[in-house]
């Protein structure tokens, strides 16, 4: 490979004070998770017959799927449009998508009352159900993501297979298998890459169709027949900010120089993408005349305001400014705002907007629900850290220098 950027497993030590904090959060989540499986959903959550879905669906699943959009957006721009300069960010984005979707599947399972029947949709079909579409698409896409990740695994182990003890006699056999697998994958990978993008477009939008059937139970500020379009557009818009946020966090955490040039170039797309989303959202409001609801001041309209102003309009303005795009801090803050906005949007769609007809109190997530959600996020970050240490995911300069400041920016040169 003569690429200037070469993904390499990172050698920095795993444990830092932050890692220990995250591990504690993860452990706390796992304890509540155990309680959920031993005592039932009712014992751990605040869900009831009025509020059948809480943050495990609204955040863990809906926002989780949206935030994993970095995977298919970078695949589209890097692989499908053959923009080689983005090569260095595709692998980290793929890893995030892989972990993100894995935990979406796990979260669905945790929320399912009869979780051991999670495979039923594979053989029991209901083409009318938006949830069925989401379920099948996510299952296939998760498989595709694992296949897309396989070349990274083969790259790591080819010529380095070292099985312990008696198994070591199979070293050569496994190595040959890996080489064959790698060759086969290389030839067919384009099928999976395109499939991944198509599947993502499908289920990102179908996730928006989910709440449409709730009809008048959904607040009109969010309930609209174009929800699938809004979900797709917002997912596409949050893809790059997510990649930027991760890249900057990882560089900082591993003491690498941020890939400012690639990220800056990537960030130019964000303002137009956010703009299209905003136009669709505002246009829909104007056509359906739902802005009348904004004249009342209550928690619902405040949450809507936060979602649109802080989560879309402010970062849109920020990404339009070259000064912001060129500064690491500016990029980081603006990206975080976009992520916040999309998370708020999913939360609002699934929780704020949902007003069941006979509810006496509003739903508030329980400590158990919050613990599990935070626990999953912590586990995801820890796994990410572990994976970049094991597999060649993050690109670092080929020539290692002892001084961090001498690291060149990689991935930008062609």
């Amino acid at each position: 490979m003569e690429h200037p950027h070469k993904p390499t497993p990172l050698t920095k030590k795993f444990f830092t004070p932050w890692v220990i904090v995250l591990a504690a959060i993860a452990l706390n989540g796992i304890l509540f998770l155990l309680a959920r499986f031993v005592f039932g959903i009712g014992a751990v959550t605040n869900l009831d017959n009025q509020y059948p879905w809480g943050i495990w669906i609204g955040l863990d699943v809906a926002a989780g799927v949206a935030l994993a959009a970095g995977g298919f957006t970078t695949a589209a721009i890097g692989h499908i449009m053959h923009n080689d300069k983005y090569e260095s960010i595709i692998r980290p984005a793929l890893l995030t998508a892989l972990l993100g979707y894995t935990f979406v599947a796990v979260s669905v399972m945790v929320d399912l009352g009869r979780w051991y029947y999670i495979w039923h949709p594979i053989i029991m079909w209901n083409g009318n159900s938006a949830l069925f579409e989401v379920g099948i698409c996510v299952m296939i896409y998760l498989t595709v993501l694992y296949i897309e990740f396989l070349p990274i695994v083969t790259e790591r182990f080819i010529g380095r297979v070292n099985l312990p003890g008696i198994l070591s006699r199979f070293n050569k056999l496994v190595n040959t298998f890996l080489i064959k697998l790698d060759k086969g994958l290389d030839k067919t990978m384009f099928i999976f890459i395109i499939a991944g993008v198509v599947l993502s477009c499908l289920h990102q939008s179908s996730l928006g169709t989910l709440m449409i059937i709730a009809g008048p139970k959904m607040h009109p500020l969010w309930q609209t027949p174009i929800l699938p379009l809004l979900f797709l557009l917002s997912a596409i818009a949050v893809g790059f900010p997510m990649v930027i946020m991760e890249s900057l966090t990882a560089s900082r955490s591993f003491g690498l120089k941020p890939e400012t040039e690639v990220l800056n170039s990537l960030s130019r797309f964000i303002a137009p993408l956010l703009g299209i989303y905003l136009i669709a959202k505002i246009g829909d409001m104007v056509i359906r005349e739902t802005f009348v609801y904004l004249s009342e001041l209550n928690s619902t309209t405040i949450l809507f305001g936060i979602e649109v102003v802080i989560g879309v309009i402010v970062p849109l303005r920020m990404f339009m400014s070259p000064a912001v795009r060129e500064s690491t801090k500016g990029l980081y803050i603006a990206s975080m705002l976009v992520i916040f906005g999309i998370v708020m949007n999913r939360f609002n769609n699934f929780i704020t907007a949902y007003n069941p007809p006979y509810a006496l109190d509003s739903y508030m997530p329980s400590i158990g629900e919050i613990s599990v959600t935070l626990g999953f996020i912590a586990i995801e970050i820890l796994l990410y850290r572990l994976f970049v240490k094991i597999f060649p995911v993050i690109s670092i300069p080929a020539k290692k220098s002892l001084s961090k400041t001498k690291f060149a920016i990689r991935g930008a040169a062609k």
Partner: protein
Amino acid sequence: MSQNRRDFLKTVAAIGTSAGALSALSPNKVKAKSPENLSEERMGVLVDATVCIGCRKCEWACRGAHDIENGNIQDYADEKVFETNRRPDYDNLTIVNRYESSDEKLSNVKLQCMHCDHPACVSACIVGAISKKKNGSVVWDTDMCIGCRYCMVACPFQIPAFEYHKALDPKIVKCDFCDERTMEGKLPACTAICPVEALTYGKREDLLIEAKRRFKNNPDRYYQHIFGEHEIGGTSWLYIADKDLAGTVFPKLDNRTAPGVSESIQHGLFAYFVPPVAVYALLGGIMWLTKDKKKTEGK
């Protein structure tokens, strides 16, 4: 990617063909589930809230018919329960609530699954476990259910209940229109026990005629609207009362069917699998063209 152009085209074409074959199969499958062919023979119950005395014997009988512990029938005369607005739950598939009627008099109304003609739950169920039967009842197969609770999100009347207290095998529960009893020719348990004939079981179209007859004979007694005749495309259970039940006892609903918008979007996105295949082809084309461009640039 060391892939030559011809292989690429071949594979894309193969995928296109198989997707086309898939699409030829699936629309039938989709149509088979949709409750468009409603039977003229479907049954219903007419609830006359002006007649109900709030004895709650129906609650007792319902529990008995569904193997739920129902205790002593005398205890159901206790009127304290009317102080709170109750909802059907996993251990009580029907409940009677008391509400203030037009002339500040108290009236009673029995609530349970409405057995919609175009049920949102049937459309929503991820595994297709819920179905609308010819006799009008909306029933479900617990063995298929995965407990996702999307039916509860979808139901406009917020009827399906879930056994949140169970760690293993929690079930979705709601009124099943006493499907077993009616198949044996018996009346639904609640209707059979009602001492004042507040509940009338019969063909839905006959019940509509009966309701209108009552309006005509006793115009002062009724608010002239049959709740459930047209709401969300019609329900099997029909309500008449001395005041408008929409907005108080029931949510305000329009006459469009509950799953209508969602299903048309869903089928639009997947019309014969054309949109997904088209996107696939488009992306494949872009991938191929940009690759080509790069090659020539390189040379």
